[in-house]
């Protein structure tokens, strides 16, 4: 499915300094054909395909690093189930890092 991914707050530096990525993603090979596509699948897809350096800045374990905001269609993913949030065609997902400065 077609998705738009945006990276902000410094995270774009991990993806060749591109802030906006229009991508086409599919369920991983192990999943059944009618499984919902969730944020969990998307995160591992992003880590494999978009993050070119320092993956520890983006993810910690199975989920995003604490301090990274995730918005699915402008809505905080904590309201829609975090990793279990289902993703649909044409969704816009934004990752913003809140960690910066000193």
């Amino acid at each position, binding site marked *: 499915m077609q998705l738009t991914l945006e990276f902000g*707050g410094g995270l774009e530096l991990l993806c060749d300094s591109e802030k906006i990525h229009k991508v086409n993603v599919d369920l991983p090979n192990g999943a059944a054909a009618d499984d919902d596509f969730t944020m969990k699948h998307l995160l591992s897809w992003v880590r494999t395909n978009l993050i070119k350096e320092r993956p520890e800045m983006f993810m910690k374990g199975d989920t995003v690093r604490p301090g990274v905001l995730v918005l699915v269609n402008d809505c905080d993913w904590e309201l829609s189930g975090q990793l279990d949030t289902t993703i649909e065609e044409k969704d816009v997902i934004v990752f*913003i890092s809140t*960690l910066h400065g000193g």
Partner: protein
Amino acid sequence: MDDIVKMIGLKNNCTFCGVFRRQALDRGAALLKVDKLVTGHNADDIAETVLLNILRGDIARLSRCTSITTGEDGPIPRCKPFKYTYEKEIVMYAYFKKLDYFSTECIYSPNAYRGFVREFIKDLERLRPRAILDIIKSGEDFRIATTTKMPEQGTCERCGYISSQKWCKACVLLEGLNRGLPKMGIGRPRGVNGDHKKDTKKPGPAVKSIESKQCGSLDFQNFGN
């Protein structure tokens, strides 16, 4: 900062940067003859500072760091209006209002002590978001035993600004840099721990001085939660 780091190495950078930046802020504010100096410290910063001061046993700062206004008896009081605002809220606000957003990471900070505390607080926030406000509340409720020796406010002999030691921290650091003694002003004069790192986000008045106090005894009255 690059020149300073060439001289002092990759440790204790926050001490130099923080002290000199604060001094620049103070001097600039005095030149402009302002009434108040307002900074953008948010809830996450204050919570980090509370934990940092506890970890270092810095009693003087612990008693001051949660005040929303400091230095009221001085020439230019300082205030932190975003004290209770979560960093996450600020970022979301900036995003939705499409504000210009600067997100440069300090290149000297990867080993800063504050980074570890920040990591811890972010993990805490994930488990229980109220933890940040609760830490601030606990910090506000600390009461220091009256028997603790606290630093007294005087003036710096070299520049005349307020200081709790003979020379203010900025003068001590500057003298060290000029004399080629990068370790001057770093580390405790006596005590258990070795290096004593200061941080860029340390709130408080223009007193930047090494502690000469004994370890205090914290009297926990009103341990609020």
